[in-house]
């Protein structure tokens, strides 16, 4: 509980400093820029790398079906979240194609699939949203449901989740 003010202050600071910096994306598409309110590709010193490459997880990337499977997974994932009353408010008016593309890039990069993640760090990317622990867990749950639908082996699911779970420190901000 006592960490809240500190996190809030950090998130505000980051959001403010990010807003003043220029945006850049590797695969910037016209429709992805339809909501230009959020800047991209800013990395703050001291904030953990959002897509740490795990060379030992190449096999997991194969289990996900490579980048084709990852892209298909994100379609399912977004659909599950939009059907989830807990998460729908976070995504229904968001730029869904961009979120799906960046998530696919991020997961691909983590699993040593050779992608470069073009998005912001996890703190900056979520700073404009009020996310609590239940929201974070709801997202994990929906990702699990989507991975089950894609028939991704359970132990491979967990190897990815084990990398993503510690990001709760940057993502949760209330």
């Amino acid at each position, binding site marked *: 509980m006592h960490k809240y003010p500190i996190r809030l202050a950090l998130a505000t600071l980051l959001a403010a400093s990010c807003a003043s910096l220029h945006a850049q994306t590797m695969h910037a598409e016209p429709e992805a820029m339809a909501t230009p309110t959020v800047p991209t590709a800013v990395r703050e010193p001291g904030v953990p790398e959002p897509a740490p490459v795990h060379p030992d997880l190449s096999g997991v990337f194969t289990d996900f079906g490579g980048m084709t499977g990852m892209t298909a997974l994100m379609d399912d994932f977004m659909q599950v979240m939009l*059907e989830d009353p807990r998460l729908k408010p976070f995504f229904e008016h968001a730029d869904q194609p961009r979120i799906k593309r960046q998530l696919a890039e991020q997961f691909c990069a983590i699993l040593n699939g050779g992608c470069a993640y073009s998005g912001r760090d996890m703190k900056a990317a979520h700073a404009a949203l009020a996310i609590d622990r*239940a929201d974070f*867990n709801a997202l994990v749950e929906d990702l699990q*449901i989507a991975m089950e639908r894609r028939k991704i082996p359970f*132990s491979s699911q967990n190897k990815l989740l084990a990398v993503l779970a510690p990001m*709760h420190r940057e993502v949760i901000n209330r």
Partner: protein
Amino acid sequence: MQTTNGSTLLRLALAMACAIASAAAQAQDASALNGVQEEPAEQPTGSSGKLLLTGGVTQVEGAAGGGLTPWAVIGGYGTRDQIGGNAFFTRVDVGDYRMDSYGALVGLYDRVELSVSRQEFDTQQVGALLGLGRGFTIKQDTYGLKVKLFGDAVLEQDSWVPQVSIGVQHKRNHEGALLAAIGARHDSGTDYYLSATKLYLGRNLLLNATVRFTQANQFGILGFGGDRHEGYRAQFEASAAYLVTRKLAIGAEYRTKPDNLGIAAEDDAFDVFIAWAPLKHVSLTVAYVDLGNVVIRDNQHGVYASLQVGF
């Protein structure tokens, strides 16, 4: 008097927990009706925030954990911003005895867990042999408190540090006269424990270790302290669970116990279990359990089955 009060309190707690759980379930059903449901069984449910099964099941004395052993997790699906809770019923059926345990717990802000439970130990034929009467049942109430000290068993996957909690279980056995006759020193007692629990997600593995300071004979069913030993002794408990799917875990537990009574040798207990959560608010645990010798009957092993509903 004390028995009546304890029993009333338990029933009240159970009724409250069930009412809350069913209200939560109804609210979730209602909200589910409003959304588009392609595969209802796979839909996320409710606002309760912890991940499936990460609140554990309920151990025999009413704390969140495995079947025999408390874990450091706080029971129920409440996150640090929420309140969770559940109710359970467990039956242990071993050769010559049967024990039922039922109760409820509340998890407050993923920090504090309060639990109340009743254990009923049916002596079946042994009761007749000992002159107590066939089916003589020894009853005990257990009041539990657990507080999380530090760590997070589930989310801190880049750290080896487990979640660590301390807890107490205050037990009041109803059969004071009988317990005195078999050599037990007290008809009530308090266990103190320290638990460390960690999910090693990348290995699909959950490990728990608990150290318990206790005087209890057979969980307290045979009282506290005895002619052979009276004081507190440290006992060790361990659980390992392998996650097969998101909804299914298999595992084993071991729990050492004191051996305080001259007339009734006491052995360690172990079990091998399957825990299944078909829905987020329901879990079913089935185990093979071995309690060893229990009062004039050796080699007591059999089935453990536990149902838990919660939110």
